[in-house]
């Protein structure tokens, strides 16, 4: 039910109203689009045009040159093969981190709403408060622990002959993002499951389903909206993280996209190739943009379904 569905009809001269409403919406849309527009037109311009022309002007002779260079030629450190290779680095870090943190969050939300125990509020409060810790403050102690984990992993490997993945920069980033994502994912799922009918859980219990069976057969199939919200949220945050990525995975072979992009656009000296930078920036942001554009509808639906308590 839309709040407007009924109020709208109450308005006076509805045509004038509509014009004002659409006018405002379009105006805001234009303002919101300016940065993206600037980036887009710049990426299609030549360097001369960028330096002499207006940043809002359309390119005189649009060229995909900058895009091609950003994709396959621009230098990231000493390697000049564009930013295309860093997608995979980001993906193999982001996908496990998002999925693990989301699944853990949903399990936590499940326990915190449907299997409450003495002190569950305190536990939830502590986990929620964890969202607020500034990441700069955990950078070093986390590095210390990851380093210890790495040495432990090396010992483990020499003892068992099997590589467990500890100490691998990608694995480290997954661990970090899972830990610091737990607060949010737990919050989202808890609020969603709070509104989830408890009678369904009871019915399933009476039907003989176990803890995990209830989760897998009853809760998970009905959690799609909140999964969308959580995955979008986590995906964007983890994809865009620079601080942890640069500190824990700076070397060329594991460097996530944000660090590579930063190395392209944030060079301290030399002529700045704005067109290439902009193209690279847009390429690097494509996955998150796509997620929001494609899943935006489900995002609002998911929020409706309970991420927002209302």
């Amino acid at each position, binding site marked *: 039910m839309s709040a407007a569905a009924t109020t709208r009809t109450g308005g006076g001269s509805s045509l004038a109203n509509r014009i004002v409403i659409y006018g405002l919406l379009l105006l805001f849309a234009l303002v919101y689009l300016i940065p993206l527009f600037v980036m887009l037109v710049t990426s299609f311009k030549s360097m001369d045009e960028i330096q002499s022309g207006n940043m809002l002007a359309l390119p005189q002779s649009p060229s995909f040159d900058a895009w091609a260079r950003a994709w396959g030629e621009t230098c990231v450190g000493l390697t000049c093969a564009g930013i295309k290779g860093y997608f995979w680095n980001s993906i193999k870090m982001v996908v496990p981190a998002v999925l693990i943190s989301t699944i853990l969050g949903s399990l936590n939300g499940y326990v915190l709403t449907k299997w409450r125990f003495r002190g569950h509020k305190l536990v939830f409060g502590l986990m929620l408060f964890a969202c607020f810790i500034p990441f700069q403050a955990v950078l070093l102690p986390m590095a210390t622990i990851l380093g210890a984990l790495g040495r432990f992993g090396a010992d483990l490997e020499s003892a068992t002959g099997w590589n467990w993945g500890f100490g691998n920069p990608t694995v480290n980033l997954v661990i970090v993002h899972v830990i610091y994502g737990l607060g949010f994912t737990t919050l989202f799922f808890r609020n969603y499951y709070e509104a989830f*009918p408890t*009678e*369904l859980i*009871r*019915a*399933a*219990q*009476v*039907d*003989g*389903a*176990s803890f995990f*069976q209830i989760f897998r*057969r*009853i809760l998970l*199939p*009905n959690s799609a909206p909140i999964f969308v919200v959580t995955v979008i949220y986590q995906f964007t945050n983890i994809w865009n993280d620079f601080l942890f990525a640069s500190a824990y995975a700076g070397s060329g072979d594991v460097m996530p996209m944000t660090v590579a992009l930063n190395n392209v656009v944030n060079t301290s000296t030399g002529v700045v190739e704005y067109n290439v930078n902009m193209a690279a920036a847009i390429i690097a942001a494509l996955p998150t943009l796509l997620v929001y554009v494609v899943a935006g509808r489900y995002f609002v639906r998911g929020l409706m379904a309970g991420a927002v308590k209302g």
Partner: protein
Amino acid sequence: MAFLEMSGLRKRFGSVEILKGIDITLDKGGFLVLVGPSGCGKSTLLNTIAGLETITAGEIRVDGQAINDLHPSKRDIAMVFQSYALYPNMTVAENIAFALEMRGVPKAERRLAVENVAKMLQIGHLLDRKPSQLSGGQRQRVAMGRALVRNPRIFLFDEPLSNLDAKLRVDMRTEIKRLHQTTGATIVYVTHDQIEAMTLATKIAVLKDGEVQQVGTPAEIYNRPANLFVADFMGNPAMNLLEASVVSEGGRTLLSLTRQGDDDIRLPVPASAAASGLDGRKVILGIRPEAITDRDGADRHAGTLEVVESVVEVVEPAGSDTFVVTHIAGKEVTARMRADTDAKAGSRLPFAFNLDKAVLFDPGTGRRI
């Protein structure tokens, strides 16, 4: 030995005691209705039987075996929930079969069982639908089917009809009654609707504030309420509860009821109460509307019939009967007259009090005398 025994059940949430020592028993094949106003603990009591909530003290036994420490799934009970609690992601068939699946029943057997139940409840055509595509009544049937397919030792119903509209509620009530009669199942049923309680139960337990007020057959509860609460709660329209004082006049012990702007009324003491020792005391007279009638509508077998004239305040025709309201002892008194009564508001009318069906309560303790 009774089939289901609850003894000394207590349940507390923090400092709040929800159940304060419940003792109820039920024979095999019985239909126990737990009734009471909201917040009385009836749903909690049901949940403790199901094992969905722990008890703080006491014991629940089924067939002589204590079950209060068993997991809900091990108690061999089935439950129908107020919201039906149908799994929205499963079809009707899957919903019904879920419990069997959880118990490792082979697929073929499950299908057979689902089909049988579906036939019994006439929901065969709905088996492939999702719960969201069903009407309220259909959901209700599916929820019952889910319970029936288990063939459990005890069925638990948690206000199963409260989400249905009036007509469907009556239909489903009949349906449940028929199911009980045909299957002989042992049922514990929670409702706040006293008509449901009366129609369905073989045994009613009235609860209030976590305590059992009275346990008995519907007739016992209705005719001989243990206290003012039960008297007031059961029956619609509610029992008239009138303050009276016991006086001795001419060697007879009589009830005296005051009236504003009219003579006091003198009524004989009902046979249900022992008259001795009441002299001079204040009592409360409980008399159901159907025991106050027009003169020729009165029960022909009535032993003590007393006719009193009173001013009619309101007339409420209800089709089969007409309810007439008058004012006695500072309270509205509802009488049940024939449909064709000529009562008019403001007119004086004779009211026939059938005191065979009346009871007396102690105003201090609220208990029946």
